[in-house]
């Protein structure tokens, strides 16, 4: 939802990033305010997943130019864990599996770490158990989910639910959901989208990184940005996603390349 006079959570300006000397992001500008949902769409290789990882602080990427302001902090000064403490959350496209660590043990460790960093109360195992089971209802998750190893042997849908469960527990200011719909059937997609919608409020914001329009039927964005070759080439409202669906990415790419030529 677009709220008038809402505070800015994220301000990205002229962001350039490379991996192994190869430039992937070539000048990104993006402003996200409280209450807003932004969708970043683009073909594979357009740089949208890289942008998500750079926001979360992945060390493989080198920032060569630009700035990222997160609330009142310079995000680029912070390692990944401090970004998480500050309220940034990335739901991974491919969450890692950690055999040997029970999911509930991991969830409680993450929750209590964030709570103590924010000066809030930690929960003991019994209190946490009640708390997490309540949150799991949002996502229709079975209780045995807590005793299994983190993401080990989880189906695609279960992994995504586990990511959104973490989002619900950690109460981030800004969530970046990377390809949340990949590997989900329509029922799982509805459940996950419903969970995200319930977590959204006027004080937080979400960036959906997605290839397909399908997800946006269930989580309706306020803004749609199209990425191509490491830049945002077109920004519009939710109707832009539908237009993309009918006209295809070629339309935007041709459009942006012709615009570039004109400006050049």
């Amino acid at each position, binding site marked *: 939802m677009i709220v008038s006079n809402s505070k800015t959570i994220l301000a990205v300006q002229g962001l350039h990033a490379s991996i192994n000397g190869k430039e992937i992001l070539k000048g990104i500008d993006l402003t996200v305010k409280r209450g807003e949902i932004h969708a970043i769409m683009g073909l594979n290789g357009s740089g949208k997943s890289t942008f998500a990882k750079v926001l979360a*602080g992945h060390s493989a990427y080198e920032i060569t130019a630009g700035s990222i302001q997160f609330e009142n902090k310079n995000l680029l000064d912070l390692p990944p864990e401090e*970004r998480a403490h500050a309220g940034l959350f*990335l739901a991974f496209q491919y969450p890692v599996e950690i055999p040997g660590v029970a999911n509930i043990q991991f969830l409680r460790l*993450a929750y209590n770490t*964030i709570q103590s960093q924010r000066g809030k109360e930690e929960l003991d195992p019994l209190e946490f158990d009640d708390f997490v089971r309540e949150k799991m209802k949002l996502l229709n998750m079975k209780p045995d989910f807590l005793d299994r190893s983190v993401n080990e042997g989880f189906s695609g849908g279960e992994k995504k639910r586990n990511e959104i469960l973490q989002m619900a527990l950690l109460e981030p200011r800004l969530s970046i959901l990377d390809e949340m719909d990949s590997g989900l059937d329509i029922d799982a997609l509805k459940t996950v989208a419903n969970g995200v919608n319930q977590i959204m409020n006027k004080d937080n914001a979400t960036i959906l990184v997605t290839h397909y329009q399908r997800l946006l039927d269930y989580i309706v964005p306020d803004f749609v940005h199209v990425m191509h070759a490491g830049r945002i080439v077109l920004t519009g409202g939710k109707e832009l996603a539908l237009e993309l669906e009918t006209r295809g990415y070629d339309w935007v790419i041709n459009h942006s390349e012709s615009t570039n030529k004109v400006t050049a």
Partner: protein
Amino acid sequence: MVINTDYLERSLELWPFTNTKPSSWLNQLRANAIDQASMLRLPTKRDEEWRFTDISALTHLPFRPSQPENIIHIGDVEHLFLKEAKIRLVFIDGYFSSSLSIFDPTSLTVGNLPMFLSSNSAYLESHLGRLAKYEDNVFTALNTAFLSDAAVVSIPKNAAVRDPIHLLFIATQNEVTSYPRCLLVCEEGSNITLVEEYIAHNNAKYITNSVSEFFLAPHANVKHIRIQRENLEAFHLANCAVSLDRASQYQSISISTGARISRYNQNVFLNDEAAECTIDGLTMISNQQLADTHSCIDHIKPHGTSYQQHKCIVNEKAHAVFNGRIVVRPHAQQTNSSQSSRNLLLSKTAQVNTKPQLEIFADDVKCAHGATVGQLDEEELFYLGSRGLSPATARSLLTYAFAAEVINRIPVTSLRQRLEQAILYQKSE
């Protein structure tokens, strides 16, 4: 007088049974063993079986054999006890301490060597020293030559001992060698869980030279948990020999975290059909520790099954060695065997040598093996960092996760929790 600084020569000089006539079988056993030891030499890196493990530091230690001095009070060591264990035998520097132990002296199935010698010498004679061969192993020869006490556990036919039996070997004396010894005889159809644990009470510098012999009769079922957490000054040299009779089951979980230099030889003989063994090992070392595990699983008869997994977690300048030998003899058809060696290096200076050694002489068998050496995964560390965990916490959690596969198999809850805590709160680089 010049003290001989060679461990072996000094041990031969200080052999205490020189004036005993070999009237009894035990004196004869000791005499044979010391004769054998005098014909052997300490291994060096030139020996194939010791090529990665340099024990030359040991050859300059003028250590005398430990003496029975019972100076330990129960308050000093009770934190080491396991609440699940209703039977506990405690040995201080290799000598039995009845005041620290719990057992029923009237049952005569669990006790120490002198007790069994007075009540059932013939039974001991038919087992002790029969499995752990000293002919070509100098450490087993010395242990046998100095044999004066031992933990003896004899489980009668079809008896199922529900609670674990704890054999606790505590080192206290400085500059000594102790010779712990275990004998386990499980009669047909019996079922037990045994925890064999080595630990130091202080920072003494010492050598533990231990030998364990396990006999499993047909259909016996043994769970053997071995914990080696000696202090970082210690040398730990251990031999364990296990004999499996028809359709018996042996499950072994060995955890090594201690000692400056340790070597554990575990030899399992599947002596009759349909025997099964599961051997899990975990070595977790740092500083300048060296930990060497050599196992041999010998499939002698058909339809045997063995499953082996060995994991090493090596930090700082430590060095781990694993040599897993699996033999399938010509008659051991329909053997099913698998072995996996997985190794995690936590620093640039850590080192591991791992070697699977399969010797298969039968043609209708299934044998698989694999080895991996890796580091903590950057993507996993990033994932945990993105959830707010500090790099140190993320590393501990992933290290713990690597170890958990072995630790989670320990069927004694308090022991498992003790180890989990020790790993989770261990600092990694």
